[in-house]
């Protein structure tokens, strides 16, 4: 069984089709057709709904927008699903809806429910923030971030931006605030479920290990932002799914003295604050990783275990010398991330083994050294696009001499890659123009990327060289001259 709230209604489902998405269920089973299908692949946001769940202290609600077209119904267990039909309070539109009307934010209207929902989650998030810091001004960057997963082909976005500014600048209590106590009680009262026929919700390492033995063909599912595409785009059937969301080891974030341990099933949204606390340099990359709804669902572990050569985080993990913990329920082993990727979409995971956590070394402050970390992403569009090239450089300098360099690259080989030749060549050298040029020469021939829809092989090669040069400029930028067209935050 799975249990959740659909708007204000309690729902228990004992028999579900594993492959049924939230969108399909809403439209075809519940006749709630306000939520639209635009692309079926999480790229347009027409299907956006909001999930409310209990916060860590279990005394409040967090509202997160997700793409219902690539979310399996099973992901709703324990949560409140809020759809566009539920926002208005009787005949009174919700403030975000009213602002969209007043600012002429809809034209054809098909994308509109999908915009209203993340705007509503921004509203609720700001409302709860307001209690802690009431004067926080809403800026364009925050709106772009909140609505980064939504495409509108009619308006050019300006009226939508105005509506979001208008409605979310100073949110007041809405009907959801009024109902929050009841909602919290309802959510707390939902039963602990273990799943249904084809869907398993193990709550321990041991249970997960048993299931993997029992169902060797089963697929592990965390955010499903990639897995669901097999169903919605390739029309595949996934008979057995094992969810990672209730296994404690996979869902923790632990700050140790030397490292940050991130459970493989932790979403980007949940790990973001901790990671950026230690590595603020990664903000741009995280902000450009998919869209906010994708980051609300997608997990760091999924990005790694997926072993795609164009995932955004593996190059970062490579350049940070991260370690991975692999587990089979009995034994755990820890390996450097570089050893994980064997070939295109092939990893070192053995049968019955899973990725348990990612361990990121914390930056070590030392008086005698200084460092520079940069993560660059090249894509056709800044928001919600997949990298053509990703390049991460992490250098440590001691009195102007390179003490160490760690690199990570995406989109240039069959696997996320490092450039050892470059790392070795510059280590021990003075960090000057000659060293930079030497690096350029090495990078120019380091990889043989391919031509594809995102970029030509030649452009990718050029980017490696030029991004290295940019890195050198930025690490030496005494005058603080503008060097980038995008300035996040």
């Amino acid at each position, binding site marked *: 069984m799975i249990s959740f709230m659909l708007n204000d209604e309690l729902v228990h489902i004992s028999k579900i089709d594993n492959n049924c998405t939230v969108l399909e269920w809403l439209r075809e089973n519940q006749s709630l057709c306000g939520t639209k299908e635009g692309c079926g692949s999480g790229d347009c946001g027409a299907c956006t709904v909001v999930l409310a769940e209990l916060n860590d202290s279990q005394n409040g609600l967090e509202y997160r927008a997700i793409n219902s077209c690539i979310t399996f119904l099973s992901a709703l267990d324990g949560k409140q699903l809020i759809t566009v039909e539920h926002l208005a309070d009787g005949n009174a539109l919700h403030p975000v809806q009213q602002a969209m009307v007043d600012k002429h934010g809809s034209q*054809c209207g098909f994308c509109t429910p999908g915009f209203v929902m993340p705007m509503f989650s921004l509203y609720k998030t700001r409302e709860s923030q307001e209690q802690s810091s009431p004067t926080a001004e809403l800026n364009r960057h925050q709106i772009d971030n909140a609505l980064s997963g939504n495409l509108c082909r009619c308006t050019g976005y300006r009226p939508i931006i105005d509506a979001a500014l208008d409605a979310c600048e100073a949110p007041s209590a809405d009907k959801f605030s009024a109902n929050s106590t009841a909602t919290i009680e309802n959510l707390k009262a939902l039963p602990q479920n273990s799943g249904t026929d084809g869907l398993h919700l193990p709550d321990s390492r041991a249970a997960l290990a048993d299931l993997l033995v029992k169902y060797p063909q089963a697929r592990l599912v965390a955010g499903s932002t990639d897995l669901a595409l097999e169903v919605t785009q390739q029309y595949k059937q996934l008979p057995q799914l094992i969810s990672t969301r209730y296994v404690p080891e996979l869902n923790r974030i632990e700050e140790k003295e030397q490292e940050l341990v991130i459970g493989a099933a932790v979403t980007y949204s949940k790990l973001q604050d901790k990671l950026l606390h230690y590595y603020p340099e990664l903000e741009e990359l995280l902000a450009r990783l998919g869209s906010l709804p994708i980051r609300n669902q997608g997990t760091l572990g999924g990005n790694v275990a997926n072993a795609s050569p164009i995932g955004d985080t593996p190059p970062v993990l490579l350049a940070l010398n991260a370690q991975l913990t692999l587990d089979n329920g009995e034994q755990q082993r820890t390996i450097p991330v570089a050893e994980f990727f064997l070939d295109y979409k092939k990893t070192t995971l053995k049968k019955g083994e899973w990725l348990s956590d990612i361990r990121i070394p914390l930056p070590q402050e030392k008086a005698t050294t200084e460092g520079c970390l940069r993560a660059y992403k090249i894509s056709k569009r800044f928001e919600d696009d997949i990298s053509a090239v990703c390049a991460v450089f992490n250098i440590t300098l001691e009195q102007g001499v390179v003490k160490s360099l760690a690199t990570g690259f995406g989109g240039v080989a069959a696997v996320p890659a490092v450039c050892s030749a470059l790392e070795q060549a510059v280590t021990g050298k003075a960090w000057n123009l000659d060293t930079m040029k030497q690096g350029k020469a090495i990078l120019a021939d380091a990889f043989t990327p391919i031509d594809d829809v995102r970029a030509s092989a030649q452009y990718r090669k050029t980017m490696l060289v030029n991004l290295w040069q940019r890195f050198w400029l930025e690490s030496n930028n005494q005058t603080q001259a503008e060097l980038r067209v995008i300035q996040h935050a």
Partner: protein
Amino acid sequence: MRKLIDKPQQPPVFQSKTVGSNKQHESAERHVTGKARYIDDLPEPAGLLHAAVSMSMAAKGKILSKDTTAIRNSEGVCDVITTDDIPGHVDIAPVFDGDPILADKQVLFHRQPWCAVLATSVNLARKAALKGTLEVESETPELDIHSAHLKQNFVRPTHAMQQGDYESAANAAEHLISGEVSIGGQEHMYLEGQIALAIPEEEDRITIYTSSQHPSEVQKLVAEVLDIKLHKVTVDMRRMGGGFGGKETQAAQWACIAAVLAMRNQRPVKLRVPRMQDMMLTGKRHPFDNSFTVATDDNGLIKATQARINGLCGHSADLSEAIVDRAMFHCDNAYYLADADIVGYRCRTDTVSHTAFRGFGGPQGMVLAEAMIEAIARKTGEDPLTIRQRNLYGGEGRNTTQYGMTIEHFNLPDLIEKLVQSSDYWQRREDIKQFNQNNLVLKKGLSLTPVKFGISFTAKHLNQAGALVHVYTDGSVQVNHGGTEMGQGLHTKIQQIAANEFGLDTDFIEVTATRTDKVPNTSPTAASSGTDINGKAVQNACLVIKQRLAEFWAEQQSGASEEVQFRDGVVSLGEAKIPFPDLVQLAYMNRVSLSSTGFYKTPKIHYDRNTGKGRPFFYFANGASVSEVTVDTLTGEYKVDRVDILHDVGASLNPAIDIGQIEGGFIQGMGWLTTEELLWDEQGRLLSNNAATYKIPAIGDTPAIFNVDLYPHPNEEDSIYHSKAVGEPPLMLAMSVWCALKDAVSSLTDYKVDPKLDPPATAEKVLKAIQQLPEEAFTCEVLGR
């Protein structure tokens, strides 16, 4: 009616002004609450079945066999059809032949549908459709426009426009400048994909719900494929989730397939095309390869122009004849081409057949004009704005287009001057030069480009419209017309027009779904003409009813009907006043007809294709924009920092809607010229076939500073309340982004070299433009080459 409805107790409250107000979109509240119904949201009729299509994996070749056995044996499958099962026409081409409902003897493009499957659910239909086997004697597809041109492989005959004597004028001129520009196509990416629902009715009739800009054509094609008369087919179209031209002809196929399946099985049938298939199976904006030779004097004044315009049409004509014509009509943009020699070619390739897209070939012609101007400017060393202003139409002997139309009421010189002032162009030009000198990596670019866009269908007969207006006995009004609502606010403007005519509030006016049984033989909602022609037709219908009411009331009051006024919910004749609903009831009791059709045809227009001369356009819509960009010379990445627009919509019917069209058109045009890159591989397969690989502008792409103003000037022509069409023209305002990118690149040579930057100007192409500049031309250090 035996007893009349109660009249409103209180006379309704009226806005003082309906036309010209910022009335919200008629569906705005339904949009934001999810209550607006698109076809896939309609309550499902009992017994509904779902259709999907099987597609060819070959791009070209003779079909040897079609095997549907595995499909038939799949779970949930009820029926499978190929062309053998089509009762009537197999060809559903809109104008000229060549667009089969399903692949028949030949495969014409990669993923062409060849059979349709009917099943009990969407998923089962789609899964079953994957199991078809099509055996094809595969041939290498022709994908290259140059090679198609060389082989004279055209979908329609070549057309030419001549003015004066190009050869002698060019020979006499001081300078000859040549260039070429290869322009990418564009995917419509309407958020609501193609869809149709067909419901068999009694008496062998059929009702079609379709997301189409052209219900009448869907009606006609459905009748033809079913081999029944038009009066058996009713098409209903309430709203589209975006159209942009992509549902002008390309919506019909799905309606026709659904109709055939529905009639065979006597069950309602829905066919919704999934996004990736939609992108692979439907035509796009035509890619064009254009070249020019322009002759100028020492001041960069154009003395003669030669242009060769090649539209890549895909496998069939579709609307390509008119689209390439429109590119030719607009290759002047706003400039006097003097003695001109313009030839347009319609090249055939083995890809999906390209189709209408906002601007309809006009944008691709205008990009050529701007490419010419940029080339001239870099040659003369003057600012491109100066060259633009110098070459605008106007002055003695400088007001005839290459197709012989006299330019009247040309307000662009004034509009541009106002925009130059409001955008602070010249000061910013200086600031940018300073910025560029001081920044090693980033270079800014600035550009002002104008738009002059001809309004009317160039196929003359399409410039007609019909309307049907009913006044009910409570004084409320129902309006129906031939235009379709795709988000552009057409129904809202129509509501305002009818409200204005009757002197009522818009709450009294209900504009209902476009239906072929209410207004017949309609034109597509296209060519920016929706409000112009349907608004006039509705106005004419209203005038008929008003005339009857006025005559009746005048007779009652022994006054003159021409002195009767309809205002603020009251009808008055001198001192005598009567609330509108009261007059309507009185008229009803006295047997006055309260319903009328209305008709309109656009005056003054004509074009002779034999001579290439005429007045194809009723008037021109004008505008101009200034864009500022920052380019990263290491990566080619860029950002549009600021945009200023001044646009001419005549006397605006609804400024909020018009500004929405301008902003939306601009951003859509910007996408076309920047990040939206269509790519096919050598087997003719579309690689950019989903929203993950084809990138339309997202919210962060909207410039931080985006100033849009309307140029306050009523249309001199007798258009509806002297407004101007607004649907397409603003798309081309985005040319200033493309030109600003070129400007930023050109700054590396101190503006001496005109860089080659073919749109879409992706970051990769911008970097390539930098790298391709001649080594010796650089006037500053450039890191990225």
